[in-house]
């Protein structure tokens, strides 16, 4: 039933594979030390020795971008996991709990929806202080309401389906129905949502780092690198261009893959 992959999808999968390699074993792609400074060769433009150029302290940007992949992807994945996890709990409560609970959670979600996500994340960081962990949680929290709405509708779709009724007629209890029917049937949509969400989370986490609220320099994280390069953007474009390119690449690749999964799920 799976459609043949188009060239864009193949490119997306290849990009993700490369990013995963960079995240898991950065030393393979860039054996150097991302923090090693070399003041003599600062601000060098891209060359054979430094494909992405160097920064103000002479650190190799290519090495830093590769080594930053892990942090950026991890933040993106963790934030998405937090968002989806919360949303799943909410969605199941709303879909299976008593009617007042559904009403209550739905209203709360709608109120949260009224805030722009990033604003909500900023608010959270203002309260709990900046840092990688808080910014991850903040991104996760702020994406949760969107997921929760979709998951709730999916849960309700399955809960009211004839096959769930058939399971009731066979004498299955509520837990068994959720575990055997609802979760597996919601999982497909969930997986698509997660894949689509990772890109967004990476962008948001980088935005927070850029604002100095997430990872802080000299850590090799894409958002933080963008932030550091901002001062020199007029003269040394490569300092911001390459980390930015990777943010865009990773977000685009995961989103493309998510879209393609979504179409496959719909088609089947």
């Amino acid at each position, binding site marked *: 039933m799976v459609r043949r992959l188009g060239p864009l999808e193949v490119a997306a999968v290849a990009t993700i594979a490369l990013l995963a390699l960079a995240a898991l074993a950065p030393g393979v792609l860039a054996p150097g030390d991302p923090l090693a400074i070399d003041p003599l060769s600062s601000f060098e433009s891209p060359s054979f020795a430094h494909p992405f150029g160097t920064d103000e302290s002479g650190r190799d940007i290519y090495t830093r971008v590769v080594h930053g992949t892990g942090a950026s992807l991890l933040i993106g994945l963790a934030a998405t996991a937090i968002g989806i996890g919360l949303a799943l709990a909410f969605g199941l409560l709303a879909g299976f709990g008593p009617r007042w609970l559904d009403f209550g959670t739905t209203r709360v979600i709608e109120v949260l929806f009224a805030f722009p996500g990033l604003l909500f994340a900023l608010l959270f960081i203002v309260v709990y202080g900046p840092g990688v962990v808080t910014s991850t949680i903040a991104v996760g929290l702020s994406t949760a309401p969107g997921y929760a709405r979709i998951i709730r509708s999916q849960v309700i779709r399955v809960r009211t*389906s*004839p*096959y769930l*009724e*058939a*399971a*009731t*007629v*066979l*004498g*299955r*209890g509520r837990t068994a129905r959720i575990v*055997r*029917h609802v979760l*597996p*049937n919601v999982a497909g949509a969930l997986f698509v949502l997660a894949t689509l969400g990772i890109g967004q989370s990476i962008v948001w986490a980088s935005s927070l780092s850029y604002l100095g609220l997430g990872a802080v320099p000299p850590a090799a994280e894409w958002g933080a690198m963008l932030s550091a390069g901002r001062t020199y953007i007029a003269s040394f474009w490569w300092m911001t261009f390459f980390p930015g390119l990777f943010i865009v690449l990773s977000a685009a690749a995961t989103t493309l893959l998510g879209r393609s999964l979504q179409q496959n799920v719909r088609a089947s």
Partner: protein
Amino acid sequence: MTALLEVRGLDVRFAGAAASVVKDVSFDVQPGECIGIVGESGSGKSVTARAVLGLASRTATVRAETLRFDGTDLQAASPRLLRQLRGKEIGFVSQGALVALDPLRTVGREIGDALRLHTDLSPTERRARVLELLAEVGVPEPRVRADQRADQLSGGLRQRAIIASAIALRPRLLIADEPTTALDSTVQAGILDLLESLRAQGTALVLISHDLAVVSRLASTVLVMRGGTVVESGNTARVLGDPQHDYTRQLIAAVPTDRPRGTRLGAAPRPAALSPGAPTAAASSGNSGVMPATIAFEAETPVRPSLTPEFAKDAPFDGATTPAETTDATADVVLEASGLVRRFGSRTAVDDVGFVLRRGRTLGVVGESGSGKTTVARLVLALERADSGTVRVLGERWSESTERERRRLRPRIGAIYQDALSSFDPRWTVGQIIEDALTRGRSRRAGEDAAHLLDRVGLGPELLGRRPRLLSGGQQQRVAIARAIAPRPDIIVCDEPVSSLDVSVQAQVLDLLDDLQASLGISYLFISHDLGVIRHVSDDVLVMRAGAVVEGGNTESVFLRPSHEYTRALLDSAPRLPARAAAT
């Protein structure tokens, strides 16, 4: 007399398909004549109609030796001329009356469209004409109805509105594709009367239906189609009375109308092992009036005569409940409902319904849509809470219990539905579905597995790994039946289990249910809108109308001597085959 519509050697092939879906179909329609095209789904009858109209899909190639309407060659006609003809000269009433109207436009505008496109009438004149048309097709209060939208009309009124728009320009030919399929029998009767009166006024009709009885009421000539070819055609009375082709005979035999309980509808004989103690009904009516066993239905391939003697021995109630006991009025009561009431808002969906179902018997519930049949089924299954009244299952508390308390008894009462496919988890294979149901059963017997159950419902083990959506409708319903019998239930609630199946497949499923009842002693609460099916399967029957039971009792006496006028109206409205054909 020259024919109004002349079709010779019509051939339709879809791009990429190996074979034509319509092969060498020829027929003539004279002015004022009605010809019927009968066939099961996939037989090519709708494609034929669409090809004639020039509405076959873009990917289809239509070829014919002759395709002429009133002397005009339709194959050579420009799209513009075809559009002209379609609006003015040839009317089309499509299947799916319920979706053929634009939900955002009023009925009056919808009908007025034809007039606006093809006549020079002023808006006021158009309005007047629309009201006339609505009155003509029997829509009450046309003035009110013309300003309503499709969702405010009942199915019957919508179908009448569609016919009104099709005849707005007084076409000389009206093509109706399954015009009454989604409608209740009393409504259907009204629509057929309307079509007949149009025909009597000189409109030629092409009536397409899967229902032989519907076609036989109007058509003077009938074409029986199968697999894209016409297998038999001719005068309706001749074809039904003296069918020449095996397939026509199968179709006629499969119609359950007026065929009493115990008669088999399908071609396969009842396995001898299944009638221990020679149940009276089965023995007396035997295979009389049924086809020779050599004719096998090909529509439903992997159907095997499967119930071997060991299975009969395996049956849980062997000896205890032979079907002979089903005639015993003192047989134990397995299901008892009394004073059931269910309201939805201000509407009373079920109003004081009570009945008793005994072991090994079938209670039929018949009524039109909205009569509360399905709500009764849901109340019995405790999927819906009754506002008052009680249901007892096997003599135990049921409707007043909590779901937790009921769970112990759940496996004893199963269900099968009209739409079998949607009752299966889309992620599961046939094997998983049946395995899951088996684990719910009472003490599972050694060697009893999913393959064994599939065999009982006449399916091969090769289906175990398949997903239900890749199966045919009949196979899906068989899998649903296998799931229902897996936990060894005492009762199965059947909610319109054969309503969406072709008539020959329907016959096989009804026979299967009958066999299982004979071997397992299961009691059925059988819900259907189809009087023929109800009469065929039920020992006793309840006739429902607007939530209430208007009449109940022994099936044959209700059908032969209905005491309530609604029952009489319902029976009269049911289209049936001419007596001679039914007796063949």
